[in-house]
């Protein structure tokens, strides 16, 4: 079938979007960016492809109808099992690499045994989380999922064993993460069905009826565009590369045609973009030589506090006031954080102050670009953080009055969406 692919290779995450010829999104894929950019782009693309096939499969079974079924729930269950099986393949590879790496280590007699136990417990814990619907492919990536759980499992060991196993993990994760594992959609879906709760068995025949057909549909893109921080590193010809400024603007314009200002806070850059009624960029400003107002700032703070990035926002939302953070430098902000905690300030308040600081930096950039105009769309990975959204909303109102502020669950995909639309428009123009 005719599809258009957009890939946004960001500094933190890589995203892919697949559009059908009408411009409707049929697939989304996301993964963490890793040292091999091609692998990150390919995994994001594969994810979007599988996601597209599920969309197509669902369209067919829903059209076939029959008795009313909660298809959304069925496909969520199917999707979580499908992703668990992918996780399992990667887990097995990593487990093998880690086991191999201590084969000749005789420093501790029971090291191998302890590693096996921890790996097994990690797998069980993660299986439960997948099956309970607590994680899916877009909320946590293999590396984060494994490392957070594995660290918890080995925490009970003595210091020496713990350190040894952390170093085994550190050594093994990169080579494993930079491998591409191919999956057969039909086969993996079959296996996923077998892991479904028994009471859903009634709908399996209907899914099976269309599975082979959907799996056989060609989803090779008719046109594709790459964008984002790492776009020049993609194995794409120049004509398949677009600036992320234009892509973010066009993605935002597609969802919100009345948007005149887009603020995108990404991993290491913040972009303030002014856009016209056609989705054309009229001007933009980006941070220069310093990433203090970006997502990495939050990543650094999370590391400093030994918590995950996704925990930051909820903690900051529990603050009763914002601690005043002066630093405009990420590293100094870490020092300031510790200073305030030592003085007895609640960590929620310090985190709120840090969130406010990042938004203030972004708003200085926004002011440089000409300020926020109606409608104002906020995008980028950081737009998933509730505390950032709160401060962005407050500051928008304070500085620019009552504007419509657009937020979208797909905000992290705006760049990839814009890229895919560029591909679609190009074909349209040449058709």
């Amino acid at each position, binding site marked *: 079938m005719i599809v258009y692919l957009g890939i946004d290779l960001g500094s933190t995450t890589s995203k892919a979007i697949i559009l059908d010829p009408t411009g409707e999104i049929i697939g989304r894929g996301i993964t963490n960016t890793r040292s091999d950019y091609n692998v990150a782009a390919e995994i994001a693309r594969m994810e979007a492809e599988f996601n597209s096939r599920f969309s197509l499969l669902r369209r067919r079974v829903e059209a076939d109808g029959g008795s009313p079924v909660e298809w959304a729930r069925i496909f969520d269950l199917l999707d979580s099992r499908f992703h668990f099986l992918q996780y399992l393949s990667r887990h097995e590879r990593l487990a093998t690499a880690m086991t191999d790496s201590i084969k000749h280590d005789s420093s501790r007699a029971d090291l191998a045994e302890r590693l096996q136990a921890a790996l097994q417990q990690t797998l069980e814990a993660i299986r439960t989380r997948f099956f309970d619907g607590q994680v899916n492919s877009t909320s946590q990536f293999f590396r984060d999922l494994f490392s957070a759980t594995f660290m918890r499992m080995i925490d009970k060991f003595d210091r020496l064993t713990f350190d040894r196993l952390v170093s085994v993990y550190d050594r093994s994760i990169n080579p494993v993460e930079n491998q591409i594992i191919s999956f057969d959609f039909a086969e993996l879906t079959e296996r996923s069905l077998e892991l479904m709760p028994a009471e859903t068995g009634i709908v399996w025949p209907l899914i099976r009826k269309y599975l082979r057909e959907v799996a056989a549909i060609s989803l090779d893109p008719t046109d594709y565009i790459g964008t984002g921080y790492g776009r020049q590193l993609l194995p794409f010809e120049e004509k398949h590369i*677009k*600036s992320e400024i*234009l892509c973010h603007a066009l993605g935002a314009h597609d969802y919100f045609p009345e948007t005149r200002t887009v603020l995108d806070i990404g991993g290491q850059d913040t972009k303030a973009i002014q856009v016209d009624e*056609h989705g*054309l*960029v*009229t*001007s933009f400003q*980006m941070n*220069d030589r310093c990433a203090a107002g970006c997502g990495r700032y939050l990543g650094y703070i999370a590391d400093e506090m030994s918590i995950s990035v996704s925990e930051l926002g909820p903690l900051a939302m529990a603050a009763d006031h914002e601690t005043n953070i002066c630093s405009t430098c990420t590293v100094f902000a870490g020092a300031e954080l510790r200073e305030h905690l030592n003085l007895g300030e609640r960590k929620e308040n310090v985190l709120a102050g840090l969130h406010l600081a990042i938004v203030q930096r972004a708003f200085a950039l926004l002011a440089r670009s000409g300020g926020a105009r109606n409608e104002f769309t906020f995008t980028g990975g950081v737009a998933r953080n509730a505390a950032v959204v709160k401060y962005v909303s407050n500051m928008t109102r304070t500085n620019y009055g009552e504007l419509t502020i657009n937020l979208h669950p797909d905000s992290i995909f705006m760049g990839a969406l814009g890229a895919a639309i560029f591909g679609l428009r190009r074909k349209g123009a040449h058709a």
Partner: protein
Amino acid sequence: MGLTMDVQKENSMIKQKQMLSDHFMALSQVKETGKKVAYTFVPGNLTELITAFDMLPVYPEINSLQSGMRKKSGDFIREAEDVGYPEDVCSYVKCDIGMMLQGNIGPTDQLLPSPDILLLSYTGCFVFMKWFENLRRLYPHAEIAMLHIPYQADGRVDPAAVKYIKDQLTKDVIPKFEKVAGKRLSDTVLAECLSRSAVAEDLLMNVFESARHKPSPIDAYFGGVYYIGPIFTSFRGSPACVGYYEELWKEVQYRIAHKLGPITPDGAITEEKYRLVVEGPPNWTNFRDFWKLFYDHGAVFVGSTYTRVGGLYDYGFRHSPDDPLGSLAEYCLGCYTNRNLPQRIELIEKFITDCDADGLVINSIKSCNSFSAGQLAMMRDIEERRGIPVGFIETDLVDPRYYSYSNIKNRLDSFFQMLEQRKELQPRARVIA
């Protein structure tokens, strides 16, 4: 202004190179010839007055930009920072001070003479005053003359300001020069110089206005900084200067007649894709890389404000032998750095209209607070009034630490795609006010 371009050369370039080489040779020989030396600044300079006294001018900011092009500025800047100049200070100043601290070896590897007089013409840049204060400490025996040029705050040349400048010239500047030179100013010599200036100024304007042609035969920025070399530095008013512009104008006329684009270090531009106007000086430390970022995209600058930094002839001003001091005063008042923001915007809009430009680029200078301060406001004003894309980038004059290739390229890639998008989707989008 450059000496270092090792590329396709035209006669005018060879001529300019020879003029510069002769000038630096003369500077290196002042001990033998007994010629006196005046250090002064480019914006609104008084070259005719200096040469009428048979003295040799030295322009510290030109030496700094030359050091930048010759990849020596980083070292000089560190030298100045070692003696206490902070990171934020104008990099021209630090580069110049560093060069002097390292023995004052100039751009041609020849010794630069110490100044006999420091002529501080204060035209819009507040750093100039502090710069010369520091030079005075380095050269305690030099005579000091300060020419205060009132800022054109209300956007016009005030007759009272002209009188104020003329008074300073007659009562302070000229007497000091007479003292240093050991002779009286010859009105005849000065008038002859100013006549020749006007001839060169007409020719230079012919060259700049040739950018209205399509394709433009010149790059008014990267080529332009070479074109302004003789007139804004040591040569305005000299027969050699007139000779240079006659040669240059001949070359430009040839390119117009043959519909040829400007010449870049990689040869002539064969397809003019974008016609741009630019605000702000170029980056000197990576001059050719910086230029390449534009000509690789087929972008040609048809107007640039920086090439008016020494003086502005676009609205008809010419030096005049009929009113020597009055025209020197008007020249100082009119240079680009001494103009207010609405005047700067007006000039940019004039370039956009006259040359039918597709977009504006602002190169904001990290270490230049006085010149960069209003650029964002200018940008917004022009965007709103003209509806054309503006690309905003940041580099520095001569501090190589502030030139980030990937940052600049990333922004320019987006800017060029913005221009492209407009051409594809909105061929008639440009609003001509």
